[in-house]
């Protein structure tokens, strides 16, 4: 039953990524050119509502659908890993025009070359795992 709920949430996510055009390489390019409000509107409105949702969950006695406490784990404090990692991700996001959610949506939409991006992003993650101890965190 829980697996079905994850699948339905994933399908909703995929449809949203495709129909919002957030999965389109063109929209990502346009965003970094500051030539449209579209992507900023999507991220901005998701964020405003997201902040309200998260703060409501923290302040009100809201439990999960299964009656469990909803946990938010604070991210480890650091500057270098978020800045350097973020810049590297940003370079790739703009070059491939896809981030880790939408790249899977594009498989379903039939753009076969996105598989090259997916396989190399798995390899990139593997490379990070190998070099992790040598990088500033």
């Amino acid at each position: 039953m829980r697996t079905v709920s994850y699948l339905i949430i994933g399908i909703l996510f995929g449809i949203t990524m495709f129909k919002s055009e957030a999965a389109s390489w063109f929209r990502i390019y346009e965003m970094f050119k500051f030539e449209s409000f579209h992507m900023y509107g999507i991220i901005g409105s998701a964020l405003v509502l997201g902040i309200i949702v998260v703060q409501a969950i923290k302040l009100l006695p809201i439990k999960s659908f299964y009656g469990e406490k909803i946990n938010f784990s604070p991210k480890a404090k650091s500057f270098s890993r978020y800045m350097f990692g973020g810049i590297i991700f940003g370079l790739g996001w703009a070059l491939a025009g896809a981030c880790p959610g939408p790249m899977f949506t594009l498989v379903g939409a039939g753009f076969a070359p996105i598989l090259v991006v997916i396989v190399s992003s798995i390899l990139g993650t593997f490379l990070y795992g190998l070099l992790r101890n040598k990088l500033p965190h």
Partner: protein
Amino acid sequence: MEWIYEPWPWYVSGPMIALIMFLLLMVGKNFGMSSNLRTLCTICGAGNTADFFKFDWKAQRWNLVVVLGAVIGGFIGDQFLSMDTAVAINPETVSDLKSLGFESAGTAYMPFELFDISAFTDVKSLAVLTIGGLLVGFGTRYAGGCTSGHAISGLSDLQLPSLIAVIGFFIGGLTMIHFIYPLIF
């Protein structure tokens, strides 16, 4: 029902993303797509090479199911919920892209030059897709998350690390589009 065939405006899409994050919280999970790339490494046996990949990947199966849903959602969105998928980007962006050699700008969902089946036999397209993917995979794990994990989940929780990461995303993205693209294309 005609509206559903049109591209969704930002004020529909943004709230949908917030709803998806809310639903994941309500089933006891967190919204973050890039951790799946690490899980896939572990499934492929990366734990034998680096300790970073030694973890109980079965606890992350739920997120792989979300990914499967994202693939199915892309199929449904393209096949059943769209008539014309051409993305109406800014005319200035279109002429700019045409001058870089992207003839399909303004008439397609993705640039033919990179995402048409012929990209598999074009060395430059393959190089762009491969290097882009490597940077995405490396950077997202180094930064501990991607657009969903930091820009949506982390910022919604008012986490400073996520703000630093998102600033990094934009420094990288702007550098690529404004300084590196003109050199490549």
